[in-house]
């Protein structure tokens, strides 16, 4: 057994531009993701984030390099269709637009769609649908029509549909981009719960730096290359690098950075608003004790 659930070696992928020429979308990506990790992927539009996601669940095939899922070489070229489908089951995806990924007119039928296609017996499907709805906090919506739900609810239904396939990893491709603050919080809380309590590996592609700070590790892509693979604390202590990449930092980190530039020696590597407030208060108290 591989220590890593996902591992890539010298992974390259090309796309065809408008003039029919091949251009690199990803260049020499070496990535190791353990089971149960929570990974954020950030980068500008066109940096290769979505390409990476599509390679990991075999919607796209690489030009060269290796992808191992749970130790198995996905790029050997002699995988059967069943093996490919099995990977898509184990590595589920949730996309940006909630309206583009719902297939049925009743919530429970939508969630049952995946397992039904696998030929799973009805009682087991029922059990899975109930479990999935329970997990995303949507029990009671079984008979509802998906198109009447809010954006956050639709995305949670999409996550439930992935959960019913009993995945080991969920990839979210800007899944909160179209949601209001409440919908975003619903989705983030659901994902964090799945990661923490069900040990599901999460790969979260996002433009929101305040979502990235919550991950175990943040991967930065730029023009198809992997530039950083750091814990958030380490990454966000380099605000200049992130700004050069056109990525910016959360407002709390920006504030801490500016205060330090003006000579305030704050301790630690705070990244969340709570931690940043804590660091400022600590400094304030020490100053008062010193002055007082």
């Amino acid at each position, binding site marked *: 057994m591989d220590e890593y659930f996902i591992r890539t070696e010298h992974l390259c992928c090309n796309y065809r531009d*408008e003039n029919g020429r091949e251009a690199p979308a990803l260049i020499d990506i070496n990535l190791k993701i353990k089971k149960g990790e929570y990974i954020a992927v950030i*980068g*500008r*539009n*066109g940096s290769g984030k979505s390409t990476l996601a599509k390679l990991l669940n075999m919607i796209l095939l690489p030009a060269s390099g290796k992808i191992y899922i749970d130790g198995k070489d996905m790029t050997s070229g002699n995988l059967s269709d069943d093996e490919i489908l099995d990977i898509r089951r184990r590595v589920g995806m949730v996309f*940006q637009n909630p309206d583009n990924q719902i297939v049925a007119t009743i919530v429970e039928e939508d969630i049952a769609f995946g397992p039904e296609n696998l030929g799973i017996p009805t009682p087991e499907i029922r059990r899975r649908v109930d479990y999935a709805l329970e997990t995303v906090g949507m029990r009671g919506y079984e008979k509802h029509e998906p198109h*009447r739900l*809010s*954006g*956050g609810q639709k995305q949670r239904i999409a996550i439930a549909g992935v959960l019913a396939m009993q995945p080991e990893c969920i990839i979210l491709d*800007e899944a909160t*981009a*179209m*949601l*209001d*603050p*409440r*919908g*975003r919080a619903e989705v983030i809380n659901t994902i964090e719960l799945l990661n923490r309590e069900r040990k599901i590996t999460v790969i979260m592609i996002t*433009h929101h*730096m*305040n979502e990235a700070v919550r991950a175990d590790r943040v991967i930065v892509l730029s023009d198809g290359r992997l530039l950083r693979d750091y814990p958030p604390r380490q990454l966000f202590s380099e605000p200049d690098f992130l700004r050069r990449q*056109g*990525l*910016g930092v*959360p*407002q*709390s980190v*920006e*504030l801490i950075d*500016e*205060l330090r530039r*003006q000579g*305030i020696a704050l301790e630690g590597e705070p990244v969340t*608003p*709570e931690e*940043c*407030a804590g660091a*400022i*208060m600590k*400094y*304030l108290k020490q*100053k008062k004790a010193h002055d007082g």
Partner: protein
Amino acid sequence: MAKIRLEKVNYTYSAGTPFETRALRDVEFEIKEGLVTGIIGHTGSGKSTMMMLLNGLEKPESGRVLLDGADIWEKPKEISKVRFRVGLVMQYPEYQLFEETVAKDIAFGPKNMGLTEDEISARVREAAGIVGLDAGLLEKSPFELSGGEKRRAAIAGIIAMKPEVLVLDEPAAGLDPAGRERILGTIQNFRAQTGATVIIVSHSMEDMAEVCDEIVVLLEGRILMSGSTREIFSRADELRRVGLDVPEITGLMLRLRDMGAEIDSIPFTVKDALPKLMKLLK
């Protein structure tokens, strides 16, 4: 002075069916001329309905929408004139780019207004300048542009109609932080160069804090509050109670105040927060 006034506006969806939904109830407020006004609220709070009412895509069930003091529905046959005066940039407007070149796409609106070729090409150049698209991009296919450029090209198409009011629905959604900055810059640029009135709908409180002079908060089809950006974000507790939020920096400063730091007025941008904190920490 009020550029747009809503008087006792009511609007119901699917009236007479089991799905009847009151989208707006007795909504009454003013959009001030030459300012940037933000509209915030949950999905389903009535924001989109409101936007469509403002430029006459929808008609109020009762009540009036006044543009420069005149009811826009007084002469229903002339409603298309209102749509030229109040330009609407929909969500993800780049999906609606369709012409062979960026220039032709931007020219589409002005063409429909029946302007001369010279006037049209002048407007295309001017609009491209406001949104910061290089002249070199104008003869390219829209599909060769980056995501952020496409978005700006789509906005230029509306700006080229020289609207007196520009309404934008989630103008920065789905863009990376640098793309987002450019869109916000474009909006500020447009206002500065034309003096037009701007209305923005967004879920990003940080974006709203950066560009809006005034904010209107909608909750379940009613106006929950309206006022200057400072007034609205100083009511953080009320906003949070209804599941909305304040900018991250405002949340941080409120937390500091709760922890005992002496902060008199709560800032809503990092630029504002910095001098206040420096005074405490220096």
